[in-house]
Each structure stands twice: as structure tokens, then as C-alpha cells.
């Protein structure tokens, strides 16, 4: 049994599904990275993902067009982000608690709409695996790295883009300075409000896509509370990745591999109760938070509302 676990098919299987499963983490956590670098802690990610997942599923199911579904998820994410931005930037609401409010809203609302508009669990045909000429045909590697759908590739493409924007552009500089010292940035004429609106709405959009990547890319269904804590883990990954896109990538891969490993344990019938195996990623999150907390420093203005001196 244990030897079977280390056979090449299983290891390749874990790698391939691990790479796939990292997708929602990547979208959500990269979005959250931008928000936190600008000093905003968005804990509503899970709710945004759920609504995005539902919107993508529902529109794809009704129209048969996956791209329209993805667009719907983007719009829903943007609207949720806009609301979050107004509450945190203009009303200076406590970010931790308002985020939980948005989470509950997304949780209830996606369930309500699902029950009213869809009713029973239905599967749809999600984004198909993209066949890349030559690369996909490489024997083992093609299977592991180049047999995924477009949303998976999009997530990985996002990492270098996010790194570039944060580190090499004026916008990135503004975001980082606002996260460290909004008073100073403000005195230099940077609009703290505008930049935070931008990062929060972008975070909402990416969370929406993260949800869509589940409902029309990986699982191709919608179910009540289908994210089951994934959005919160994504927030934790930002801490783990030390607020850097590359670190987030590492964290996302670590998590998805652990998840894939856990799923394969069940597939192979290893005698570990599945309920305990499912615990693994959550326990790992806590351990990872402990490890991350001791070695890196959060953006100074994180979760602090900005008020201009009179």
C-alpha cells in the first residue's frame, strides 16, 4: 500500500493535480497581496469567491458560454470589491470584522441564489484542457505541466505580472508606500483613497475569478459553501509568502500538493479516515502562520484606516 504511494504514476498524478489545484489559491492570494501591500486586509475573499463561483456557473449554465460566465464572475467580484472599498476607505470600518460580514453575505447570498435559480446540483462542461502543440506531447512532462485549462495557465501567468507591477512600476511603488506610510504618501500627493480603491476592486475581481476557476474550471459544479475555507487559506498564504508574489506561489503550490496528496491517499484507500486527512491543509495553515509570523514583517499600515490630519 505504502509502496504504491511512491510509484511514479501516483507521484506524477499528485504533481499534475497539485499544479491544477493551486489555481484558486493563486488568483485569490495574489489579489489579496495587492490589497495588503496597500494596507487593506480583505477577509471577505471567501464570500467574493463563492459569489464569483456561483455567477460563473449560473451564466455558463444558462448561456452555454464559459467566457460570459467568467465575465459574470469578474463583474460580481468587482462590485463586491467596490462595496468593500467604500466601507473600508470612506467609512474607516474595522477591516477584520467587515470582511467577516462580507463573507457571511457571500455565503448566504450564493446559497440563496443557487437554491432559487438552480435548485439541484448540476454539472456543466467547464473549460477544456488546452492542448499546446509540441509541449503537451512531451511524454511525462506534457502530462504534468501542459494538460491544464486556460484558467490554470492564467493563474501562473499572473505571478510574474504581479511581481512586475508591484516592484517595477510607479503604481507598485505607490501601493507599497501607502501600505507602509500612508501619511507620507499622502503628503507627496498620492491619493491613498484612489490606490486603495484600485487594489481592493482588483482583489475582488481576482477572487471572483478564483471562484470561477472552481465552478467552471476544476470542479464544474456549484454547491453550497463549495470553497470551504479556501478563501481564508488564501489570505493566510499572503502572510506565508511574506507579501511577495513569488512567496505566494510557493505557498499555493505547497498547499495544493498537500491537498492533492490527501486526495490520492483516499483514492488509493490508505487506511486513514478521510475526515482526518482533510484536516491536513488547515493544520498546515496554522503551522505556516506560526513560521511566517516570526520571520517577516507585515506592511506597517496593514488593517489601519487612513484618516487625513485636519
Amino acid at each position, binding site marked *: 500500500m505504502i509502496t504504491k504511494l511512491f510509484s511514479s504514476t501516483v507521484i506524477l498524478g499528485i504533481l499534475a493535480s497539485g499544479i491544477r489545484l493551486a489555481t484558486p489559491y493563486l488568483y485569490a492570494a495574489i489579489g489579496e497581496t495587492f490589497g495588503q501591500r496597500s494596507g487593506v486586509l480583505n477577509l471577505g475573499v471567501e464570500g467574493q469567491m463563492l459569489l464569483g463561483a456561483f455567477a460563473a456557473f449560473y451564466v455558463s449554465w444558462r448561456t452555454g458560454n464559459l467566457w460570459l460566465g467568467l465575465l459574470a464572475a469578474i463583474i460580481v467580484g468587482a462590485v463586491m470589491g467596490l462595496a468593500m472599498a467604500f466601507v473600508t476607505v470612506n467609512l474607516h*470600518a474595522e477591516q477584520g470584522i467587515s470582511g*467577516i460580514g*462580507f463573507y*457571511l453575505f457571500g455565503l448566504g447570498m450564493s*446559497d440563496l441564489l443557487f437554491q432559487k435559480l438552480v435548485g439541484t446540483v448540476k454539472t456543466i462542461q467547464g473549460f477544456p484542457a488546452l492542448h499546446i502543440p509540441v509541449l503537451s506531447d512531451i511524454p511525462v512532462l506534457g502530462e504534468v505541466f501542459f494538460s491544464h485549462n486556460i484558467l490554470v495557465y492564467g493563474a501562473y501567468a499572473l505571478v510574474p505580472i504581479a511581481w512586475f507591477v508591484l516592484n517595477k512600476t510607479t503604481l507598485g511603488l505607490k501601493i507599497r508606500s501607502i501600505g507602509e506610510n500612508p501619511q507620507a504618501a499622502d503628503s507627496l500627493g498620492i491619493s491613498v483613497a484612489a490606490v486603495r480603491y484600485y487594489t481592493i476592486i482588483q482583489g475582488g475581481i481576482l477572487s471572483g475569478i478564483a471562484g470561477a476557476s472552481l465552478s467552471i474550471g476544476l470542479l464544474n459544479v456549484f454547491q453550497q459553501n463549495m470553497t470551504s475555507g479556501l478563501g481564508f487559506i488564501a489570505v*493566510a498564504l499572503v502572510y506565508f509568502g511574506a507579501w511577495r508574489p513569488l512567496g505566494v506561489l510557493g505557498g499555493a503550490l505547497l498547499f495544493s500538493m498537500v491537498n492533492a496528496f490527501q486526495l490520492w491517499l483516499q483514492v488509493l484507500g490508505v487506511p486513514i479516515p478521510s*475526515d482526518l486527512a482533510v*484536516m491536513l491543509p488547515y493544520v498546515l495553515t496554522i503551522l505556516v502562520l506560526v513560521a511566517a*509570523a516570526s520571520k517577516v514583517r507585515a506592511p506597517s499600515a496593514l488593517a*489601519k484606516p487612513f484618516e487625513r490630519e485636519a
Partner: protein
Amino acid sequence: MRAWLDTLIDALLPLAATLLALLVGAVMLLFLKVNPVVAYKALLVGAFGSTNAIAETLVKATPLLLVGLGICISFQGNVINIGGEGQMIVGAILGTLVGLTLTDWPGWLVITLAMVAGFIGGAIWGGIPGVLKAYFGVNEILSTVMMNAIAVQLMNYLLRGPMIDPAQAAMASKIPQTARLPMDFRLPRLVPTRLHLGALIALILAFLVYIFLWRTVWGYRIRAVGKNPHASRYAGINVKRYVVLALLLSGAFAGLAGVIQVYGVNYRMITDGSSTGFTGGAGFNGIVAALFGNLHPIGTIPASILFGALLVGANKMQRVVQVPSALITALNGLVVVFVVSSEIWRRKRQRRRLSSDQSDAGGGEGEDAPVQESPADEPQPEVQG
């Protein structure tokens, strides 16, 4: 006079937030082609329409109040405990184990021991994130959410395996639930409805928590740490210890809520397979109730009844106009968002009052501390030791 008016406005703000949420809910209902007047009327009748309905409302309010009391303690200490669900579950697990093990002990003793066990279970599940926050700098919101997920899996594992009802284990269906507790172990009912002693216990505890927070040194220090950890440290308070205490107590009350659900309502521990199981989402909704009650134990009493009513009424609404009760989860989320958003007006008034108080003393507001509220009418820390 001014202070009296301020208290009134403070109490009315959450009410306005709720009305606004209900208004948004009405718009959503219109989109779903449901008449909101009919829906809300069904909700009201379902919650208060008969003696039974009122009793059900109070039954639902009980875990909300208990969890809410814990939330009052932790949020007053500026520690955000989102782990009510997990703490309820672990409390219930330990409490149920007591009842299933000591089957031939007298009922009153077992119930008492079970409550103690639940209190301890919740305290452990809340204490772990407390220690992680105080000594390792781990964000407690994230750790408590993870602890929820772990507790749910633990419950699923135990109820499907070691703790499963032997009768279910023999059947093919294998519903994940424990055996039924003996009759003597049920919490006594107060009136010929499902209202049980737990409601009274929760009510008494609300007053005790008030006394704890405002009349004891420990409670005072928790609040001082919550208002201003730096000043508290200079005043000689061991800040870390009180962060742990706040989360530990917060979890303990949720654990108690879990036990009381088992011994007062279900008489066994059960998961319906959903992500929440037997808690009915009280671990989250208790946060809503506590915020609504301005994080004051006494204010949380009517707040719990209100949200208990929403939950009970939602079932009726589901039957009458076919609106899934998930609507209430969504509305609760909006209430949270609106209540924390309305804080800005409270802070503004507080600041105005403070600056008018201090104008003759010549004191300004000092350096900027946007999150920390000025400790308005509280005495300055004079803690010894």
C-alpha cells in the same frame, strides 16, 4: 443629558443598520419575484406568532447569547474571535462524552460536569489561537477560522467512527450521530414548550459577564489591553496574558453553548452533513448578535432574541414563500458590515465630546491613533502590579 442622548444614539445605530439590511433584503426578494411584505410578515409570524414560536425564538437565541457573551469579552479585548463554531463543536464533543460515559450517575451531576467539560473544551479551542497570537504573533482571525475547519473534521471523524450511535453503526445508512443521552440528562424545560433551562443559564451568565468585564480587575485589564495595549504595558499589565485570557474565555462560552445545544435541544450530538452541523451557524451569528449589542453583555440579550427570531422566522418564510433561509445568513452579513460602518459616526461624536471637554484644559487629541478609540468616559489605568 448629553451622555444619556449618546447612549440612546449608540443603541439606535445597530437598529438602523438592521433596518437597512432588511431593506436591502427586500430589494433582493423583489429580484427573486417574491413579495417582501408577505415574506417579512411570514418571518414575523414565524418568530412571534404563538407561544411555541416565541419559545422557539428563545431556544434559538440561547446559543447566540452564550457565544455572543464570549465575543463581548474577546472583542472588548480587541481580539477578534471568529472561532465560535469550532469552540462550540469541541465543547459539545467533551460534554457529550461525559454524558455517554457516566450513564449511571445522577442527572444533575452529569449535566453540571458536562457543562464544565464544554467550558473547558471551548477554552482549549479558543486558548490555542490565544497563545499563538500572544506569543507567536499569529493573526487570530485566520487561526480561529482554521480551528473551525479542524473542529468540523474532528466532529465528522468522531461521529462517523469512535462516537457513532451503535444503532446507526449497525445500519447501512450510518447517519453520523452519537447515541441518545439518557432521559435524566436532559436539561429541564421551563414551560410546556421546547424552551429549556439553558436559556435561563445564559441570561444569568450575561449579568455575570457584565460584572466580570466592568467590576473586576481581570475584566478591567482585558478592556484596557483592548483599548490601548501600549499604555497597558506601561501600566504594568501583562498584555500577552490578557490576550490569551480573552480568547480562552471567549471560547469557553462558545463551548458551553455547544453543550447546552446537545443537552437542551438535540439530546445527542449530530451533524447533518453540512459544513455547520448541529451548531446552526450560532458560532458566526453570535458575533452578529454581540456586535449588534454594542459588545455589551446586557445589550447582547435583546440582540440575541432579535437574531433568534430572524432564524426561526426564516423557517416559516421558507415554507410560506419558498425563500431559502440562506437569506438570513446574507442579511446577517450585511448587518455586520453596516454596524461596523456606522462606527464612524460614533467615533465622530466621541471625538467632538472629547475635544469640547478638553478645550479648557488645553489638551488636544495627541498623536493620531486611528483605530484606537480614545478611552472616553473610562478612568485612566491605575492598575497596580
